[in-house]
């Protein structure tokens, strides 16, 4: 039981630090080390994700780091994607999805590692995607659709102790990214945070800390409906779930503490390294090595 608590704590720590669910840690451990079926492990993992999300988001929303408005908007697309994915899952082979998901993760990781973060400041009027009018946000004269660019927010960075102002762009195309995240997470069983964070950070120019915090908030919404279904359907192993949830809770609190000490640029680098690791695990899993 202590071993399981430690594993769950690690999942909670990484989950709250990077806005991921932690399912990528919990599911393999429960299936490989504890001999649980994939469905039973997924049920426990979903409950842990909800706990990690609720604990992390409560603190991150209060400090305005997590953006509730943008989160709600983007999550409508992800939740729709999850429903579509659940239906597609009946017809598509899971390894195909896992491999394509891994490729997206590797691309995101390399992009985030190589390119510096670009945050839209209040006086920044440039187009975020020069020469690209295909997303429907440009009128062809360099003036972007106001409905898609006037979202401005502020959060307080506890590490640097300053207020960070940022503008959110490409919301509509970002929603397409979230739709894809919802579909792939429902198909592959891995939390959509790994896709949602690069979409928010790279495509929508939401600062890394705000992107991971917002992801922390929305993954709970994604996971909760699945968790309710497993719980009410009697599939959930209550004792294992209880142990994992307690570990995840403690890990989340530690992760939140570390989050106040880490700066945004190193966080982006660590996240890209984590993406490479997760992609490797997914590829090994798809190839039947795990």
């Amino acid at each position, binding site marked *: 039981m202590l071993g399981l608590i430690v594993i769950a704590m690690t999942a909670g720590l990484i989950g709250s630090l990077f806005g991921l669910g932690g399912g990528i840690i919990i599911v393999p451990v429960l299936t490989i080390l504890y001999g649980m079926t994939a469905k039973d492990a997924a049920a426990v993992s979903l*409950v842990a994700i*909800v*706990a990690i*999300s*609720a*604990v992390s*988001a*409560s*603190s991150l*929303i*209060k400090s*305005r780091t997590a953006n*509730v*408005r943008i989160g*709600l*908007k983007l*999550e*409508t697309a992800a*939740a*729709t994607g*999850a*429903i579509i994915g*659940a*239906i597609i899952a*009946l017809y598509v082979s899971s390894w195909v999805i896992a491999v394509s998901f891994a490729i997206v993760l590797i691309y995101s990781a390399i992009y985030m590692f190589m390119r510096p973060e670009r945050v839209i400041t209040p006086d920044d009027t440039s187009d975020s995607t020069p020469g690209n009018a295909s997303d429907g946000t440009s009128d062809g004269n360099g003036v972007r659709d106001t409905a898609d660019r006037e979202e401005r927010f502020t959060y307080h960075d506890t590490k640097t102790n300053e207020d960070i102002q940022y503008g959110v762009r490409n919301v509509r195309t970002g929603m397409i990214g979230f739709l894809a995240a919802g579909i792939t997470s429902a198909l592959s069983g891995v939390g959509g945070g790994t896709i949602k964070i690069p979409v928010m950070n790279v495509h929508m120019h939401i600062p890394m800390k705000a992107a991971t915090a917002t992801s922390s908030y929305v993954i*709970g*919404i994604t*996971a*909760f*409906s*699945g*968790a*309710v*279904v*497993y*719980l*009410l*359907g009697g*599939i*959930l192993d*209550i*004792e294992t*779930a*209880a*142990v994992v*949830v*307690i570990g995840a*809770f403690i890990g989340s609190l530690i992760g939140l503490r570390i989050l106040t000490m880490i700066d945004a640029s190193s966080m982006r680098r660590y996240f890209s390294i984590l993406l490479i690791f997760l992609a490797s695990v997914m590829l090994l899993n798809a190839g039947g090595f795990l």
Partner: protein
Amino acid sequence: MNLENSTSFVLRYGSVIGIIIVAMGLMAHLADISHSDTMMTAGILIIVLTPFAGMLVSFTSLSVNRERAYAVIALILIAITVIGMVVAFLLV
């Protein structure tokens, strides 16, 4: 009724109350006390329903503050989530 404060409040207390009940249930289970499973299930149910309660409070807060566009978005999300639950229930 501030959106961030009210949503944060629900998420914090929902998860903490749920965790306390789960921990008490687990201790009761280890001590071989009856009804420990019911206690753990109740705690887990509270945790699992917390994000949904958070969405309901966000919707209420946005409505009260007359942020109509975001209130509609929150309502749509609640509807999609409920539909998602029904679909998942049918597929499990």
